[in-house]
């Protein structure tokens, strides 16, 4: 995309990559953030992401409407989420173990039903053009933004507000931090967690739709390449704060674009090293921000406990 722009292509490609590559991270990490705030971990979002991508692509192809595809992806996530939500809350069941099973189940479902959709091309989501009319085609192509990205941008502050200023948000936090206290207030832990996990999976499903209907905009079995799992780590890195999830997702998306964009201007050495930029970045930020003197602020107290 950056041909003909020379070195200017690099920042441009990173900006574009931030918006494109950041979108699935954003949805999955917000979904995981909601889930973990209620005190359960859902590693299965990797599987949900794949199922969402496949469903969105398939439905878009079959009905001709990418918007229906997005809705279907969310609903598919909802179904997977309800399985995880129910299973992980059974007596003596560990949510991490269930999550790993759900990764395998979700990807299995996606591969099984997705076989027929690898060849055909499905209608893609329309994009909004950010650039003016008199710019070069390269710039124009880079600045196509998806409505899904804007939706994700809106959901992050909305979720922050939800946690802070709605009764339901307080319930989710109470259940995640101190189930005993929540029980004393007559809040049903099962219901709150179930709904949080389902809503989180709904978001992750939409994240999958953004993969297959926006960028890269195809359906293959390797489309997620572990982004679902990275998003789970990203939530910890974001200290369970939806707004930091937003910035972190953008950062990861941008870092992902570093390798390809440098390659496009002819820098071939260290290609794989640049591709590893998101991981190196994560490590660096973790090291810089960690402190033995402070407890991890924001971690839900009951996260990963058997209760």
């Amino acid at each position, binding site marked *: 995309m950056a041909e003909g722009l020379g070195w200017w292509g690099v920042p441009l490609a990173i900006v574009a990559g931030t918006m494109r590559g950041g979108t699935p991270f954003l949805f999955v990490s917000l979904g995981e953030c909601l889930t973990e705030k209620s005190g359960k971990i859902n590693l299965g979002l990797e599987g949900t992401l794949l199922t969402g991508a496949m469903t969105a692509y398939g439905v878009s192809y079959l009905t001709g409407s990418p918007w229906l595809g997005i809705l279907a992806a969310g609903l598919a996530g909802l179904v997977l989420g309800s399985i995880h939500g129910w299973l992980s809350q059974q007596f003596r069941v560990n949510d991490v173990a269930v999550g790993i099973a759900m990764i395998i189940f979700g990807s299995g479902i996606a591969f099984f039903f997705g076989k027929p959709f690898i060849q055909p091309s499905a209608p893609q989501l329309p994009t909004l053009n950010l650039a003016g009319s008199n710019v070069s085609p390269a710039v124009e192509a880079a600045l196509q933004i998806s409505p899904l990205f804007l939706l994700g941008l809106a959901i992050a502050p909305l979720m922050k507000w939800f946690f802070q200023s709605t*009764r339901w948000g307080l*319930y989710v936090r109470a259940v995640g931090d101190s189930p005993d206290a929540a029980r004393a207030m007559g809040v049903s832990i099962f219901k709150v967690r179930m709904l949080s996990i389902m809503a989180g999976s709904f978001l992750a499903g939409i994240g999958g739709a953004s993969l297959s209907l926006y960028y890269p905009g195809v359906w293959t079995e390797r489309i997620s390449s572990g982004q679902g799992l990275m998003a789970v780590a990203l939530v910890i890195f974001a200290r369970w704060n939806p707004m930091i999830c937003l910035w972190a997702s953008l950062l990861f998306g941008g870092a992902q674009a570093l390798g390809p964009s440098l390659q496009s201007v002819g820098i071939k050495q260290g290609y794989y090293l640049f591709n590893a930029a998101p991981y190196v970045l994560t490590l660096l930020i973790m090291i810089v921000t960690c402190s033995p003197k402070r407890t991890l602020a924001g971690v839900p107290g009951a996260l990963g406990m058997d209760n």
Partner: protein
Amino acid sequence: MTTLSSLPSARQLDRPPDLQVNGMTKQFGRLMALDNLSMHLKSGSFHALLGENGAGKSTLVKCIMGFYQPTAGELLLDGNPVQIGNPRDAHRYGIGMVYQHFTSVPAMTVAENLVLSRFGGAGIINWKAEIEALRAFMSTSPFQVPLETPIAQLAAGQKQKLEILKQIYLHSRILILDEPTSVLTPAEADEVLGLLRQQVSAGELSILMISHKFREVMAFADEITVLRKGKFAGSGAVSELTVADMAEMMMGEQKVPTPVQKTSLPNATPVLEARQLGANKDNGIAAFSGIDLTVHSGEIVGIAGISGNGQRELVEVLAGQREAAAGEVWVNGERYTATRAEMYRHQVCALPEEPLRNACVAHMSVAENMALRTFDRPPQAKGILLLLQAIRQMAVGLIGQFSVKTPSPETPVQNLSGGNVQRAVLARELSTEQIKLLIAANPCFGLDFAAVDFIHTQIINARNRGVAVLLVSEDLDELLKLSDRLIVISDGQFTYQSQTTTAEYAAIGHAMAGH
């Protein structure tokens, strides 16, 4: 039967309802926790519920609150039978409870917890209006708790105040208090109970209070009901009973607290020395600074103070749970950094507050918890192998010696009652004969008469053996009873020091308040 929909909300009740419990029975498996118990809480009265640990007081109030469904028996409100399925129902009937375990959400602020505690209400919270309303509420409430502080940063005393505040905030008409004053200073306790008493006298509230403190029962309660082993053991008007009568009902026989017998020891040597010690709270603000403290062998130094003035952090530094920001600690004339090797070499023992959290691994067995100090040394270990038989044997011995009530040494320690967890920790810490230093923080928080007496006796015995004891407590009576020297901490500074025999009550109170 009254249905919930036809009920007035708690706010609209103009007087506390009359509450009657008839033939309440609750069985847990084979255990009869509550056996055909009846009691009557008259409208606008202050009723105390007395009984030993495990007598069934908590079970009774949890049945009233709808936490447990009773096996048999009924609940009458103003003469009508009612069914309370959960705490939310109880609240709608105007019944609220302050639990022994804190029920606030640690990661949330005081304001968030208060708003959250209101059942129902609008889905969207207008924080500006809420904060204003909360400030107005705080200005008229009997005690103040900072609204913006997360609960995790509050000390035990402040948490307890918040729990009571919550119920006042919720307009509960029947208030059930589970040992509300165990973390308050006597002056605070009198203030809190006095204010609640005024509300009762004005006919605004009925109170059902679980307590172990006869002094408070005598001063504030109208009537008592006594439970023993799940059964009714007596009731009556406080004005017609003496402390001895009540104690007799509770234990089935008269018991007097073991008198404190201190022996004076020759050649006291300094064991614990803190020099210009300072540490920060979790949020990085100084908790205390520039503290100089010496504890000699055969001496109990008591540290008094209102919770949240740096005591918790001080104990954490000495126990190795928190890094000191400044200064040094010396034990037996050597630099001490609270490593495991140093603890063993100097025989330092600790009895921290909330022992289940600070001194136990909750899901490990009683035996394993009792071996935490010694499992890696002979006779409990051989090389890298643990000798489970030896660990079990020692635990069996300690369980007997310290009368820890546990079904078996293999029971997870979290299944024990608070008093027995404290006993188990005490057993572990005092099991070696040669201990030199004991650091105890609120060792009797929430324990009943017999357990308190037992722990006090153990501490005094340790002192008489020549152990240096640092006792941090929020119970001033306990400190005046046990300690040889008394220090008051206020806002992270020592504001008062005196021999206990010459300590002045008024001066201590002033120092605690920070004047």
